[in-house]
């Protein structure tokens, strides 16, 4: 299900401890997955020692399988992806897809 006219704003920043933070605002769907993918690709490779990535989902209102593919691709490359403030819907999607361990929600 791809919402018509889905938009997504992607910002790459850092936590005070230096962990990269990718902030997603809007909808992560087929039409917008590419920009999120570019953000992950811009991070230092996990082989360089930086493995932790936080994905801030405070402003993310929708995510579908295209979005999961982006997150799983990053995890597959060796990133330890943690989700920050996902909505209950996204949290439910992660749980229903059996991804609680692969894409843990930040405490």
């Amino acid at each position: 299900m791809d919402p018509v006219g889905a938009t997504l704003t992607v910002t790459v920043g850092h936590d005070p401890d230096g962990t990269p933070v990718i902030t997603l605002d809007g909808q992560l769907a087929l039409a917008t997955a590419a920009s999120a993918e570019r953000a992950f690709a811009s991070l230092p490779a996990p082989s360089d020692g930086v493995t932790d990535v936080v994905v801030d989902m405070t402003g993310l209102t929708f995510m579908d399988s295209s979005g999961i593919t982006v997150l799983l691709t990053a995890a597959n490359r060796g990133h330890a992806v943690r989700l920050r403030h996902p909505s209950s819907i996204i949290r439910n999607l992660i749980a229903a897809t059996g991804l609680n361990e692969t894409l843990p929600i930040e405490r």
Partner: protein
Amino acid sequence: MEPAPAAVPVERDEIPEIAAAHAARRWPHRLSIAVCVVGLIVTAGLCTASRLNYAQNERRQVSTQAQLVAAALAVAPVDVQRRLGRAATLVSATGNVSLFAGALKPSVPAPFVGARLFHVVDGTPQQVGSLGGQLLLDPSSAKSQQLLAKATATGALTVTRLATPKAQRLGYAMSVTTLGQTYVTYAESTLPADRRLELPATSPLSDMTFAVYFGKAQTRGALIETNTTDLPLDGIVEPIPFGDQVLTAVMTPSTPLLGRFAAYVAWIIAGAGVLLTAVMAALTERLQRRRAVAEQLAAVSGELYRTQRGVAETLQTALLPQHLPRPPGLAVATRYLAGTEGIEIGGDWYDLVNLADDRLFFTIGDVSGRGLSAATMMSRLRHSITAYAVEGDDPATVLTKVSRLIDIARDGHFATALCGILDTSSGRVTFANAGHPPLVLVAEDTVAPVRAPIGPPLGVGSRYETAELTLTSRAILLAYTDGLIERRGEPVDDGVTHLCHVTPSSADLEGLLDTVLTELAPQDESQDDTAILGLQWTP
């Protein structure tokens, strides 16, 4: 088992745009012709307006010119009157006839050929003097008598025209009475014998074609002079008082008085208008052709779209199992709904295969994304799962092995799948889940999702757990893909709850699937593919 629904036949609708295109094809040049007609009408209008305007200005110019010429001609009789009057006055005032010759000497031979002096005694004119050459008017003729009598009676310049085959002259008579003595002077001046007058280029008449007639009638006999042979002349008529007579001048410009360019303006407009019209028509024609080509392309691409969608649906159907086993003690029903939008093939699948010892292996799965790569991955997974199952692996092991076959980074897809083994003799079911929506169990008047551990999707997980349940008689297990429960803005769990809510607790298997599909029919155009596999244990 029913085969999956066949590709929907494509109907070619007669849409308005196509009908309009047909009409345009019937009259391919109508717009160009319309442009031509309008362009030519506008050109003709402008050309006519220009011609009218030019003609009006030219007429005004000619009229002004004609008045100038008339004024110039009107000077001639005044001069004649002055010369003759002066001589007559001199003689009558002094009584000395010999002064006549002296007074008119400067006027002979030009403008006068010759002159005569008459003394009117008791109303009868008697010639008392003459000067210059032979005159045409016979003094004893009636014409001469009448002319002199008229001059005497009026005291004004009296004019007559004298014409012989060889010569043409004007005769003037002027009478003056002083101290009771009346004298009449008579003179003749020549006109061109052939009535043709060659004018110097500086004359105001040089760019005019003209004809001057004696009197009001424009007859050949009354013609005094002209500079053309093309008579009668169509032009401006100007009467010129000439003594007691009237000359009639007819004038028309021999070249346009406003200049040649002004005369050609209308034709320049006409030429430019025709040229512009031609260019516009050509442009219109070209645009029309491009439009026709674009319409054809649109029709072709529409056709192509329908064909591709047909191909996608056919391929989708072909990738799903054509014949499912129908083991005794088990009813099987399936449904497959292609997403309503787009031509791309989806990645949902189901499969059913007989194992030894009354056991049946079932799978339902969903490759993320769409398109040919999703479909080929689906096909690969489906056959791999079946192969491992036939080898005797339990469901969790099958998923573990298949998960290794997927590299998300390389393939760009992940997949969820749920597979299990149903023992038709005991109703026992063992199954494992890789990120897939849970099974729904319809048994003993209740509908509920089967709670069981959910492992990560294929390509992510490396270990899966096998769960177990036992069916009661006539219980139904529903396996499905997320297209059935996905509801915009709602958590997945709510979708599952909604599915359980709309699933009838007592119905035959086929009717149950029909009801579920009707209740959960796609709400919007971009709905995902949906696959459903229903198994009813009938021991």
